[in-house]
């Protein structure tokens, strides 16, 4: 505990500042935790490593959690990893349970964050040794497993799968980048598109276009009335938050946090896969999955505990292999190098004090996040009370600013936002399902890379089944997930036909 004596009040102040700024970044659609860390990185040049890390880890935790707010209240994922939060959070907010949904999300986030920090502290070197057993094949299978959520998320299974495949197809437009080990060639476009789509569609503008702009267009068509929105009127008599909502959800919390930590520690999988995977597994293993997607707290718990447990998970490969687990931790390497500290397999042993400080900062950041969010939530939740004729123009403006800023000022990203906003509106009309489409889009390009790399490296298809016991285990989970989706689909169809018969 010697490191504690070296900590100054500034250390704690910087964590609070970091968490606060992170929450703001995460809450604005199009602004992410990665941007928050990148923007504030130069501030750390004037600080020593301990205080610099306090600021950056605060930003990281705040940024990931902040994504919860627009996901629940506006159905716009603040960060890609909060996409599954919209599935149950927004229906709850529509029922007038916005504040309750946010509080459930925050408690789940705290659990996930603390869980992953503890795992990081106790098992980082062992887990990093386990992580390197995941080659291209196992990584592909993990993404494939996450993709199976498409089947269970769909209202109409056939249309859902079509939407998912469409999402994958859209994600492949552009260059097969050499920085991903590709051949640098263009695909899936006509010549006139090349100047715009050379780098493909960017994730954030697509995400906020489909969810944010698309929803605004649909609502605008229905006509936005001047009076205060109906949800806000129900805020006073809404179901109140109580910790009892977590009764019976410990397994969900533990499973989702473990999935989040685990996916976080696999470089190249991406944070969104964690919450998608946790959501799928909750749907597959819970006693009553029928309410998921309609405002079930268990979905929110799975999604939020998983995405916050990414924070500790992504630090595992960073601190024990020198390899960042996600885009945000990639920036942290810069902070270390600038202070002359090398991260790699010997980092922990060589820098014990820094190591303890980091885990401590991560824990403190989670509790600070909880304190700030939990007590501010009452006021934040009132955003649904803002009349839509004021709220929607503000959302559109934030979406445009976020889309333009996400890749440091590329105008085509704003057009992407608009294109996918219109596409989201049309998709709603023709029955294309947005959640499966976006999950396909998020996971498609990684799936392609690992699939192609697996074939390039091993040269045959059978290797996907025979590579390792881990691969076999993942196949079992994949088959279980698909079988369960089919079972659920048949069950709900029977239920519907029974209801029709009863009515007639």
């Amino acid at each position, binding site marked *: 505990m010697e490191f504690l004596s070296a900590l100054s009040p500034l250390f704690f102040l910087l964590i609070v500042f970091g968490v606060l700024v992170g929450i703001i970044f995460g809450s604005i659609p199009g602004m992410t935790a990665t941007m928050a860390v990148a923007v504030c990185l130069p501030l750390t040049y004037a*600080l020593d490593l301990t205080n610099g890390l306090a600021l950056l880890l605060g930003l990281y935790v705040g940024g990931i959690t902040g994504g919860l707010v627009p996901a629940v209240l506006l159905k716009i994922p603040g960060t890609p990893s909060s996409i599954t939060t919209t599935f149950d959070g927004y229906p709850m907010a529509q029922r007038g349970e916005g504040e309750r949904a946010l509080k459930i999300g925050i408690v789940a986030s705290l659990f996930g964050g603390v869980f992953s920090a503890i795992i990081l502290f106790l098992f980082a070197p062992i887990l990093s040794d386990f992580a390197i057993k995941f080659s291209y094949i196992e990584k592909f299978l993990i993404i494939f497993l996450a993709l199976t959520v498409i089947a269970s998320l769909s209202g109409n299974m056939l249309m859902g799968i079509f939407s998912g495949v469409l999402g994958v197809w859209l994600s492949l437009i552009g260059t097969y980048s050499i920085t991903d080990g590709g051949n640098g060639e263009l695909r899936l476009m006509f010549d006139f598109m090349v100047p715009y789509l050379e780098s493909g569609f960017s994730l954030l503008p697509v995400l906020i276009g489909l969810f944010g702009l698309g929803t605004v267009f649909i609502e605008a068509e229905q006509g936005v009335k001047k009076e205060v929105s109906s949800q806000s009127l129900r805020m006073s008599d809404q179901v109140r938050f109580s910790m009892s909502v977590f009764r019976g959800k410990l397994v969900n919390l533990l499973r989702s946090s473990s999935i989040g930590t685990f996916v976080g520690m696999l470089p190249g999988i991406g944070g969104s896969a964690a919450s998608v995977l946790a959501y799928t597994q909750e749907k597959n293993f819970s006693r009553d999955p029928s309410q998921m997607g309609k405002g079930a707290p268990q979905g929110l718990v799975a999604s939020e505990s998983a995405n916050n447990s990414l924070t500790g998970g992504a630090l595992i490969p960073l601190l024990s292999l020198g390899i960042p687990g996600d885009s945000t931790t990639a920036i942290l390497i810069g902070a270390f190098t600038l202070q002359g500290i090398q991260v790699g397999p010997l980092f922990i042993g060589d820098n014990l004090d820094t190591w303890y400080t980091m885990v401590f900062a991560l824990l403190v950041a989670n509790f600070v996040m909880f304190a700030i969010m939990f007590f501010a939530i009452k006021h934040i939740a009132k955003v649904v009370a803002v009349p839509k004729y004021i709220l929607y123009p503000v959302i559109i403006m934030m979406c445009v600013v976020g889309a333009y800023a996400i890749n440091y000022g590329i105008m085509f990203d704003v057009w992407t936002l608009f294109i996918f906003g219109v596409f989201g509106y049309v998709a709603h009309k023709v029955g294309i399902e947005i959640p499966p489409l976006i999950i396909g889009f998020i996971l498609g390009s990684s799936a392609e890379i690992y699939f192609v790399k697996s074939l390039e490296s091993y040269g045959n298809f059978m290797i996907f089944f025979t590579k390792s016991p881990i691969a076999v285990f993942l196949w079992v989970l994949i088959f279980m997930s698909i079988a369960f989706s089919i079972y659920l689909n048949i069950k709900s169809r029977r239920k519907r036909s029974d209801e029709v018969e009863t009515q007639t």
Partner: protein
Amino acid sequence: MKKTILALSVAIAGTGAFNTAMAEEEAPIDGNLRIVIGSTSTGGDTYQNSEIVAQQLSDKLDMNVKVDAVGATEAFKALERSPDGNTMMIFHDMAYLGHLYGVRGYENVFEEFNVGPSIAINPGNAYLVAKDSPYETLDDIKEAVADGERVRVSIQPGGVSEIGFSALKNAIRIEHPGAEENLVAVNSGSQSDKNQQMFDGLADVINGSVQANEQFTRLPEDDQKAMRFVWLTARQDTIEQTLEEGMGETTREELLEFTEPNVTVTQDGEKNFTFDKEFFFIYNEDMDQEIVDYMDEALAEIYDEGEIQKTQKQSFFIPNFKPSDESEEYLQEKMNEYEEIINSID
């Protein structure tokens, strides 16, 4: 706390460095300066190096300077649109190597743009084998290839990562004609992918860097992750300029064991091949010569003051300022040499 206050004071003092700022009436650039870089990563060496220079320029020119990690394709596009000097690019040898290797989006920077001053070298480009590899040295690898053994080298194609591989292949072609076919490239993306290929036994040699891989070289041999340097492509005198303590626990002396003349890769039968990863400015082709001179002058003053060198060395960069004319001539010559190597193995 004392240290923090000191650091903050230095930072505050830095932002108001009126004495060293260049006179405003001289400024041929209006408004802010945006530096786009050829990498999308804000955790990599290009960003780090550019950020160091940007901060110094911001003080010197008394203007806002912002580094944007937009990636090569977007950076070249942004540069094409801006002849007024408000957008400049910082990149490294990939800028012309991409063109030599025929990577999409890379034109000849010497024809389509203006190459500006060089600022620093990252001396860390390295090749490694697993610690339990049968190849102890680069010569072992060359001999194995000459004997008909297939040796797989994990690289990211089309740039800095590939040039050492091309040079090695060329050297084997010169020393053992025909055997170079046995040295094969395994395409990969990030450093994490390259390491993983070694852990999975999919590559015998990987491209890496002193910064990213040094700790792996200190692991015990029975650790699956343990690696060994076999070659640093930097010139001997570049490594000699690093801090004496080197990187991590590998001292400068130890690093020198892996550079020429201890490890040699012939370029043409006489001269040794070396590769220093150099960072330099790239300007719009039509940018005013007055701005070119202004930037040269500002950077010359920054380097004369001597502070930037300390920051660069602390981050394992070698300060290497060359004004535009000198830099362009030098880099053009460097490109011509590498073009010969790449053409000879096609």
